[in-house]
């Protein structure tokens, strides 16, 4: 498995990132301010397959949006592929998203009017890659993800798993610095989920750096590292270090459980409930 190798270049560096909502003016009372992220820092090395885990309301979606340049942190810096994305504006932002990021959404988010082939090719055509090169790269990505036979089909003719793998192909075909996956298995049955995660492993083995947000311990167990986040703060991280997947999963579940235990003693009961109910998901599988 192509997991993190020590000494590799850093692709993502999150430095002291905070995000406050409702804090635009100083006159607002402290109570009306929501601290979604609180001085979060971590780094992802090139070729890593990492997961960010946390219960609902933990701030993981806010973190993902900041990484995806859809949202801006209130303070702190995010550096991706050597560029400080928190300083980018307008045209630079869309160029950055186009050239340096790949997205996999929860619901594949393919264009329903286009075939699988065209959906994958679209990521390249908006980069103005030459037509000759596009064909080779699309077919190569399809081969890696095992979706060659659906290339001429439209999304409504495919299964959910196939759609998600087409989305994965679209996200990686541009060879971005970083692939962001937002609950990619959320809408899939367990078999399709496993197939997709294996595909992501395969892509990672070929050099793609993948950062996946999930609340599912099974999904997270495919990764080389899991970063836990709770109440907008880093809770800790687990490294797989060549461990067996089911053993790794047990360790993840333990951490998740400890997160919710800790929450039970805290002040925010509502968040605890959310964490507990979500923590139960891995057991259900």
């Amino acid at each position: 498995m192509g997991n993190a190798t020590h000494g590799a270049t850093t692709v993502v560096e999150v430095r002291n990132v905070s995000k406050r909502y409702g804090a635009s003016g100083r006159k607002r009372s402290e109570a009306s301010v929501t601290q979604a992220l609180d001085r979060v820092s971590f780094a992802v090395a090139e070729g890593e397959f990492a997961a960010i885990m946390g219960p609902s309301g933990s701030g993981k979606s806010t973190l993902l949006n900041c990484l995806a340049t859809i949202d801006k942190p209130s303070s702190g810096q995010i550096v991706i592929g050597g560029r400080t994305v928190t300083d980018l504006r307008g045209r630079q932002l869309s160029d950055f998203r186009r050239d340096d990021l790949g997205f996999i959404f929860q619901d594949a988010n393919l264009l329903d009017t286009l075939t699988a082939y065209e959906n994958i090719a679209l990521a390249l055509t908006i980069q103005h890659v030459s037509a000759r090169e596009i064909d080779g790269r699309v077919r190569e990505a399809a081969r890696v993800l095992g979706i060659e036979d659906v290339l001429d089909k439209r999304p409504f003719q495919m299964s959910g798993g196939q759609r998600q793998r087409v989305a994965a192909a679209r996200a990686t075909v541009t060879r971005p610095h970083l692939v962001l996956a937002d609950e990619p298995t959320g809408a899939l049955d367990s078999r399709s989920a496993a197939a997709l995660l294996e595909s992501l492993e395969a892509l990672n083995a070929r050099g793609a750096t993948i950062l996946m947000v999930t609340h599912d311990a099974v999904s997270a167990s495919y990764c080389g590292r899991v970063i836990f986040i709770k109440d907008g703060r880093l809770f800790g991280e687990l490294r797989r270090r060549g461990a067996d997947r089911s053993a790794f999963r047990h360790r993840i579940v333990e951490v998740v459980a400890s997160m919710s235990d800790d929450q039970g003693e805290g002040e925010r009961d509502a968040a605890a409930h959310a964490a507990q109910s979500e923590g139960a998901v891995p057991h259900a599988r």
Partner: protein
Amino acid sequence: MLAKIAFGNVRKSVSDFGVYFLTVMLGVAVFYAFNSMTAQQGVLAFSETQDRMFDLLGMIIGGVSAFVAFVLVFLVVYANRFLIRRRKKEFGLYLMLGMRTGDVVKIVALESLIVGAASLAVGLLVGFGLSQLLLYVTSALFQADVADAAGFAFVFSADALVQTVAVFAAIFVIAAVLNARTVARAKLIDLLQAERASEDMKLTNLPLSLALFAASVAIIGVSYKLLIDNGLMEPSPQFAAATVLVCVGTVLFFYALSGFLLKLVQMVKPLYLSGLAMFTLRQLNSKVNTTFASLSIVCLVLFLAITSVCGGIGMRNALVGSIEASTAYSATVSTSFGAYTSETGYVPADLGGFGEFAEEQGWDAAAGLRASARTLGAGDFDALVEGAAQVDFLVDPDDGLTMGDVEEASGLALSDFAGSSVNDGYEVYPVCVMRLSQVNAALELAGKPALSLGEGECAVFSDSDITRGFYERAVERGTTLEVGGRSLKLTSFHGDSLQTTPFPLNTGAIAVPDDAVPEGAAIIQTLLNVQCATDADEAAFGEMVEAVAETSEPNTWPVTLSMTRTEVLDQSIGLSTVVSYLAIYLGFVLVVACAAILAIQQLSEASDSAPRYGLLRKLGAPEGMISGSIFVQVLVYFLFPLALAVAHSCCALAVVTDVVAVFGHLDIAETALVCAACFLAVYGAYFAVTFFGARKLAFTGK
């Protein structure tokens, strides 16, 4: 409170209301401007004939306006439905928050009222300007000056204003009622989930589209050929076939167009795989099932509008240009003395004392009029008239020449040439003969060369298009006619009008050597053509003849009809101007209707596609690239119906030119170009509103 919400909504979604506003505004402006035209009578110095023509124009525009109002009702309701559909979720939210259905209905009605009142006000202002413009157009067309000494007058019609406001108030009420019904009937769950109603995805067979597109082009080509080969002269089966084929071809064209474009571009890989080309084409192709019908209708209606406007204006120009040919004389006085058909024989008209007087004068119209005018003290014939020439239309009372006889002699059938434009049973009507000496005198008076006929020869005169082809062919065949027992060979055809007349009146009369006129021939009609030295003399002559025509004094010449050159010009120009105004009015409304339909359709599509544009943005497609894709989509929808309609129109106008050639050279010049520019400006305005509206919808979507 409700008013505040309504005001806020209108302010927030100005661009959503853009198409609605533009449509109502243009509708109001045109409706007012054309309905106020009769008010020009108060401002322009019209002649009496022009006044009558304008009364007629007013009446016809009144009738046409009913149709226009109907079109506008449809448009306003259609535009409203788009607005409501877009905002179902918002209405759902109001209801969720506990607002009563009645209140939501009131908000919608208030919004319509605000936008309606604003567009009505602006539309009326534009309408005032437009009617002022029309005033100058009329003034130029009719050569009638503004009566006011200063040469400027503001034309305003309170009637038209009231009418416009009333019609549009009614339209708004209808629209508001329909909106209210939509909102009141909708279920809350449907309103809230309006977005989720996904259209069914259909697969289109691309090679089939290619074949269908080729077929559509072929069908349209065949219909063009049929039309050009057979013309419009007669409603033949070929003409019907061409009409059906052009409709079928057009529908097929739009059904296959997007598939064809897709397949075409797919074959050029570097083009297909660049930027958003494939997205744009797939986008167009995905809507084909919902749009091909409306695109076809828009195309055909545009075709109708372009053809009627260009044809109408061209016809007017042709009429005005060729009227010279039928106004060779200062005036023509005609008198009918009887009628003839092969069934009834010669039936003299009951002219009483007038008839006896005419007989006393030896059927000499000039002498008769001279004496009558003197008797009545109506004027001095000789002082007013420089020259006169009389032409008698004669028939053998025992065995007159009829149309049926000519058909038999030539072996031709008139109906083959004139189609349905001749009345049934025309065979029994007479073909009159004229003395060559009289014809030559009339030709000489018009400054034309004289005609010479040899022994046993005759010539045919007809200024009517209905019989022209028939007689020309009969001359070619060397037809021999039996006139009063003598055989005369038709040697030439002449299209000259032997009188001053607004319409062709002579469908065929045979000029024969004087000695060939049958013994005891009866006069069916006498024409007296005169030339006057000045326009004043001409007018005085007209009045003098009118006095003779109206008197009950039996010792005067019977006058059936008299026409002076000025009267003919006024009437013809007036009538054709009425026609062109109507064509412009209708054409304009139809263009607005087409553009509005296209605009609304495109905007609702952009609204449906908003999530797709949102995804493109997430994938990093720059705004310019997405704008470009929207531009191309809107352009295809606006350009292709117009382009095909123009192609249809060119073909139709080529044929219409043949028809109009009867009146003179079809000149689709300046006026038509100005109209085309106006129409294009309106069309362009809709295009711009649509493009910017669609772009906004795409960029605000998530």
